[in-house]
């Protein structure tokens, strides 16, 4: 039902633009990935190329309901300090459903960069790390591939009000 309609119309390409885009892909893949392949915490499959969650169909067992239940069960509200804002956690999920390369950013409720009480941020990141029922994304040949994903947790007065995007 929801097609990010504006995006689609803006992303519609002519054959020339497609060729140009493919050329840029190749450039990016060959130059950038060879220099910046992520390593350490998570073994990415194949060449280590990551694709966005919304293209690979990456999912979590139980969907957003499963993620929310995990937070509901494990998060302890924090009633002190700067306890309202958004915590975004970005991470990779490899072809085996393993997660790693966690990074986070925090925003105010008006979407400006900020800092939020550490005990809120630490809990939210820790729970994200403990989400271990990921169903890997797939390519057109139905092979499991690496995806990158984010979860944004909206906290108001120390309590979780919303978890996005899906």
């Amino acid at each position, binding site marked *: *039902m929801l097609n990010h309609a504006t995006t689609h119309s803006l992303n519609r390409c002519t054959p020339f633009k497609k060729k140009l885009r493919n050329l840029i892909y190749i450039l*990016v893949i060959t130059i950038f990935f060879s220099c910046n392949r992520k390593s350490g915490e998570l073994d990415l499959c194949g060449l280590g190329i990551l694709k966005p969650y919304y293209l690979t169909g990456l999912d979590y067992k139980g969907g957003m309901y499963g993620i929310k239940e995990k937070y509901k069960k494990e998060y302890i509200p924090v009633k002190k300090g700067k306890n309202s804002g958004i915590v975004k956690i970005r991470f990779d999920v490899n072809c085996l459903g393993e997660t790693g390369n966690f990074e986070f950013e925090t925003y105010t409720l008006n979407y400006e960069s900020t800092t939020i009480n550490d005990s809120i941020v630490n809990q939210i990141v820790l729970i994200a790390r403990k989400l271990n029922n990921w169903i890997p994304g797939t390519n057109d040949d139905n092979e499991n591939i690496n995806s990158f994903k984010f979860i944004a947790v909206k906290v108001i007065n120390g309590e979780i009000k919303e978890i996005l995007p*899906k």
Partner: protein
Amino acid sequence: MIKWIKRIVIGLLSTIAILILLFVIIKPKPYYIINYAIGSQMQWFGYDKKGNEMIEKSIKKLKNFSASEYHIISIQNTKNGNYNKAIEYLDKASELEPKEVDGYYGWLLLYYYRDYEKALFHLNRYDLFTPNFDDYVGDDNILYAKALCYKELGQYSKALELFNNAIKSELKEHDESWISHQVYFQKARTLHLLGQQKKAIEYYDKTIKSWDKSAESFYYKGLAQIEINDSLIGRKNLNLALDLVTKGYKTSDSYVALFDEVYQMEIEKIINEL
């Protein structure tokens, strides 16, 4: 022969020197356009920070970015969860051309940010540009989008009024089959939240008539029936919902969870608790 080899080598070296001079030292406009394009692709592959750095550098040098260009950069940042960047660019786009951007902005804040009050601000402002016409935002009638905001804010009566207006607006030029099952479903949810179970069931049925595989409609219809002590039929509908959702029939979106979206685990839990 040696003379020609010398010429070729000098020619090549001169070309390289000119290219270095152009793209590393002088950096003309095309350099920043390419830089911007590569930055966008890097973001697409998830390298947000580097991608955004390249884009920002290009914006500073290229100047006079249009509303639609800011809008495009904002979209990828929303998709990657870089809310600060996404909103910064969308604000710039909205300042430049509110008439073009506000509808999208309101729709985005509703679905992707769940920021209902700010969403209403942009949707109302957008609506004022064409007071005699009900615009569309995303795939939604603007009245429906506003109704969703009020519903999520807990202002159910106002939401119901707007759902009714959205349906009326759609029926001005189309018949009932044109109306998305989600419109009836959300109206049913609002009636349900208002405690009007019987009326809600009527609208869940309208949704099912429009799409007989709507797991969410069977699920909430089942719950409404159980609430008015029609437990046997209610349970039957919950099982039907579970069967449908297990087979992959439900309303969902690739990017974001929908309002009142149902999940297999959720239905199983409710059935087990009965």
